């Protein structure tokens, strides 16, 4: 799975968790998880579990607070899938 696919799959997850269509339309790798996507600390629960379940990885060596942007998440998933 390449970066573009990872990003698109993340966007599919976001479609189910981020309500505002304008936010989704503008989502890119530079989007800030908190200020751009508006993810609250509690709302991260959906995203973290979704990533584990949809990418078939376990995020046991990282905390979601370590990620600031979508790019950080894509980087992590890309690395984890390659392992």
């Amino acid at each position, binding site marked *: *799975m*390449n970066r*573009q*696919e990872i990003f*698109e799959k993340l966007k*599919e997850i976001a479609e189910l968790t981020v309500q505002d269509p304008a936010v989704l339309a503008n989502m890119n790798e530079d989007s800030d*998880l*908190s200020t751009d996507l508006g*993810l*609250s*600390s*509690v*709302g*991260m*629960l*959906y995203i*973290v*579990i*979704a990533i*584990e*379940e*949809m*990418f*078939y990885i376990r*995020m046991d060596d990282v*905390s*979601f*607070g370590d990620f600031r942007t979508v790019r950080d998440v894509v980087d992590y998933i890309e690395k984890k899938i390659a392992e």
Partner: protein
Amino acid sequence: MKWKLTEPRFGDIVRVLAGQFYHYGIYASDDEIIQFGPTPDAEHSLLDADIRVCTSDVNGFLKGGFLEVASFSFTERLKAAKPEEIVARARKELGTGGYDILKNNCEHFVNGCAFGTKSSEQVDSVRAFWQNLPVLDVYVAVQPETLAEGKVEPPARQKELDETHNDALKAQRTFAWRVLCTGIKRSLGLDVSRIDLRRDAHNKWIANGCAVSISHCKGAVCAAVSKRPVGVDMEPKDDPRYREALIERIASDAEKQMIAPLSMQEGLAKLWTRKEAAFKRAGGERFLPEQTDATGDAIRTIRIRLDHDYIVSVAGENLGNLRVYEVGGTDELHAARRTDFETL
């Protein structure tokens, strides 16, 4: 555990709806709710390091929401510590960090204080939501002129391919299978070499937790992946072999009505692929098109633009969740991008 809008008592587990999820705490008094959350000076932080066991008053905890109080079931009452012990455990943790949204969140914290075991129904239910999300993905690809060397899994499928002596057909079948393996991996996270993919009594490929179907035609292949029985069929939109007479031979009156608004070729492609998809989904000894119903809501027909227009029918559940991905050529089987389609 049930939740009531009653006055909290010393040692109660309390919660408040914060967005889509609940935030939990241990009630000691109106001035002391012990919670595992962002400290007051880092309320909007996403950093786990800013989340610690701390206290707040009722207003600080609720932030305008409604306080809900836990009411234990009989079994929970037997397992729960006494209110004094619950509060003592919570106070002992004040200042502690180590927040982990999956394994050590605010709900884990209060359950740990009350029952001695950390658990989170919210995490469990969210995980169940994602695990049970319907999957109905179709992968389409243009048949490359040459195929990369290499065998497919499982060996039983490779044996079938080895026994296919028509080179063009063998290439189609091989490529369709590779596309299928890409889809199984991408949509379900399963490695074909590690699942028991086999033919059932009706010659249909099956595996535990995974339902598949493949189709190939001149120029392109497709593969459907789901968790529930699925059938897929693909045909070029303008196949010169399509003849009006075929409609008379295989279509019921209802089916003729279904394809009436379409051109003869498109209508016939729709009719044929729906029949094949329905048959593949159900499984059976022999495909008898005139006896296979192409109408009904359990089949969806779409038009996809690749090198040419193709008609694809998918028979299965959750057709509203259908996603279509276009897979790259021989050497790019792992590159799949979501593609648009038009429902026919």
